């Protein structure tokens, strides 16, 4: 069962950028913040060759993987056409400036 865990404040994440959440023995999570302060959390692995999406350029509602420039939709983790693939996304909520993730 997953439960809400506070991970950081909104201000900890740069606008049009991301922070990485490291977890012992589990895949890292990238938390993205768009220009209009929407937050999204994805597994920090591009479905193509495992590139760290957290290091990519965030624009609109997607991130460009730094390794081979695949574009990944932040809300779904889906690669944008014509590329195909998907990385896991994690439920996220914001309350009073605190960011919570639904973690195992």
């Amino acid at each position, binding site marked *: 069962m997953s439960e809400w*865990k506070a*991970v*950081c404040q909104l201000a*900890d*994440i*740069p*606008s*049009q*950028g991301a*922070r*990485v*959440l*490291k*977890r012992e023995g589990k895949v*890292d999570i990238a*938390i993205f913040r*768009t*220009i*209009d302060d929407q937050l999204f959390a994805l597994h920090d692995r591009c479905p193509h*060759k495992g*590139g*760290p999406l957290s*290091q*990519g*350029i*965030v*624009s*609109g509602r997607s991130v*460009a993987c*730094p*390794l*081979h*420039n695949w*574009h990944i939709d932040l809300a779904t983790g889906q690669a944008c056409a*014509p590329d195909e693939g998907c990385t896991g996304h994690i439920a996220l909520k914001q309350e009073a400036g605190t960011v919570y993730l639904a*973690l195992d």
Partner: protein
Amino acid sequence: MDKQKLVMVGNGMAGVRTLEELLKLAPDAYDITVFGAEPHANYNRIMLSPVLTGEQTLPEIMLNDVDWYADNGITLHLGKPVVEIDRGRRVVRAADGTAVPYDRLLLATGSNPFILPVPGKDLPGVVTFRDIADVNQMIDAAGCHRHAVVIGGGLLGLEAANGLLARGMDVTVVHLGEWLLDRQLDKTAAQLLQQSLEAKGLKFLLQKQTAELVQGESGRVCAVRFKDGDAVPADLVVMAVGIRPNYTLAEQSGLHCDRGVVVNDSLQTFDPRVYAVGECVSHRGVSYGLVAPLFDMAKVAANHLANFGIARYVPAATSTKLKVTGIDVFSAGDFTGTDGCEQITLSDPMGGVYKKLVVKDDKLVGACLYGDTADGGWYFRLIREGHAVHEIRDQLMLGEGAIGDTGHQGQNRAMGMPDEAEVCGCNGVCKGSIVKAIQEKGLFTVDDVKKHTKAASSCGSCSGLVEQILINCVGGAADVKPKSEKAICGCSDMTHGQLRQAIRDKHLTSLADTFRELAWRSPDGCASCRPAVNYYLISTWPGEAKDDPQSRFINERVHANIQKDGTYSVVPRMWGGVTNPSELRRIADVADKYDIPMVKVTGGQRIDLLGVKKEDLPKVWQELDMPSGHAYGKSLRTVKTCVGSEFCRFGTQDSTQMGIDLEKDLFGMWSPAKVKLAVSGCPRNCAESGIKDVGIIGVDSGWELYIGGNGGIKTEVAEFFCKVKTREEVMEYSGAFLQLYREEAFYLERTVHFLQRVGMDFIKQRVLQDEVGRSELYARLKFALSFEQDPWAERYAKGVASHEFAPLTV
């Protein structure tokens, strides 16, 4: 409020492309209704030839199927020719009585084949070559008849003849002109073409005027009779003598027509509510039958239909290609070589190669190639870009040379490559997959091919090959515009040049202002345009525009090079490639302490520490206590030096110190692409100055400067720029050239490509002849560099961007 109603009459390539462009710009602006006379959705008319030969089928050449219309909320009326436009009531009426009102109307009625006004023109067995119905008639006839006559030896006629030959018919091509393809080729090339087509089995009757089509006993056509009395048997006659804009409907509705629907530069007719695109229009007295200009029109019309109101249709040079398997013909621009033109020709009839280049006022204006069309794309680019060619004139005929020296076995001739040959060595894409994607997905641009196949999407060295393949597949429809004419990305229609100019003219200093002021289509741009805009801002307004780290690629954001496993590499600066025991000890200690898996000497005379964890970067930098080598940026990389006169017995100048001085002078310089320098102390050139952006060679009497060299993807030898006497001059001339490059080049354009685009004359004029300009350029460079500090020290000492290096934990 109800949406505006847009009705389109005609359902061909130009019209549907307009709708596609419109949907990109303003997806919800209109309720759209389309009337098509044919019972098919939008197919690629250019590909009817391969359907006729049997190389492709109708489903393969569909560009937009019925689902596409439905998915985009477009009401589609197929098989319903429109018979009336009531402009007063703003209603169109189709033959079956369907009536649809419009707020705006788009006419895309295309053209009709010209029918020779000779007796017998309406007999059974007489067809044209325009649509799928025609192709089906030809295929049926080929199944049960023997003799075919094609009237017209133009592109269409030859492709029809080739198709019927492939279907087993005995085919004669009748042509009024003195030689085949007289609008595309000159006589010599046409004769070579005729020989190869004859070798395939086609017969030709030139300078023959058709007088009559003779009816046989069955009621079907049986022969073609000529003015001179001769006749040939014919069970099938294909009229391919040209097209005429189809403007009957427009004329009947009272729109001003003059051999086409007359439009202005915004593709508007004399009725402001009515636009027209494609083959039916007459723009400044000219009608077009090739697809490339029609696609350009589509963009312009869409821009106005979307109420953007900023696009103008400007005719550009076009290119054509004959789609007959095994025969290579390419022509572009004005190749007839009329007044004031010079011609360069290469003729090798035995080898089956003929090339003619037409130069006017020091510019390439036309090209006509037969047998070897590999450089067609390159010539076409030169024609469109229109810059001076005298510097490359002696090599012009030899072509662009090996396009991409690395990664594809030295191949530079796409035609001759087998399907399984690898085109893109980075992503392992072979020719067959590219051809398949182009055909199946209906691709027209190199960018589309990149997206769909990944070919040419990494190092780009095979872009030329991909372009050739594209031209071979879709002919003149290939959108092979040079970067100077292309929109920067999907976020805007501006070119790089227009964007630079606007940033200068409007004094834009932030990304947000730029996107707002220049009406970007996305609120915060995309991963392609943001780094470019950020560079243009900081290079145009140093000290005023604030650098935006979020608009930089990761390497420039964290000042290290990302590796495939997400670790980073660290290259500390070693001025002029000179180090000392203390630095080497610190490097060794850092490598030990942080478990750095590889320490490697780079090609630029420095040391690379590979496999550093991101969170260790600030500590590694601090303990190295050396400045950043900027080995990760579109910036000054290294200044490579040789030992020079201090130690070398041949050295004429102290190249090492010159390199150190230059490197310190240019430290922290951001540029459109990476910049590498080298300084050699004598003409033996051990520092390899000939393949650097700025290469300097010391000689006894001073220093020689070379610019525009490149040792990477495609080896480019730097060109001699000037000779100077003093060290100060080396600094000023190099700096002024680099500042000119920083101010004028497009983002990601290396110095070699910048040099090719603007020409050496321009650079010499600005840097050598204009003394005041040179010192101003150099002063502007120094001013821009005065804001730069060592980015590593800023991070470990002042805590800049600390969030980048500290992961979150739970």
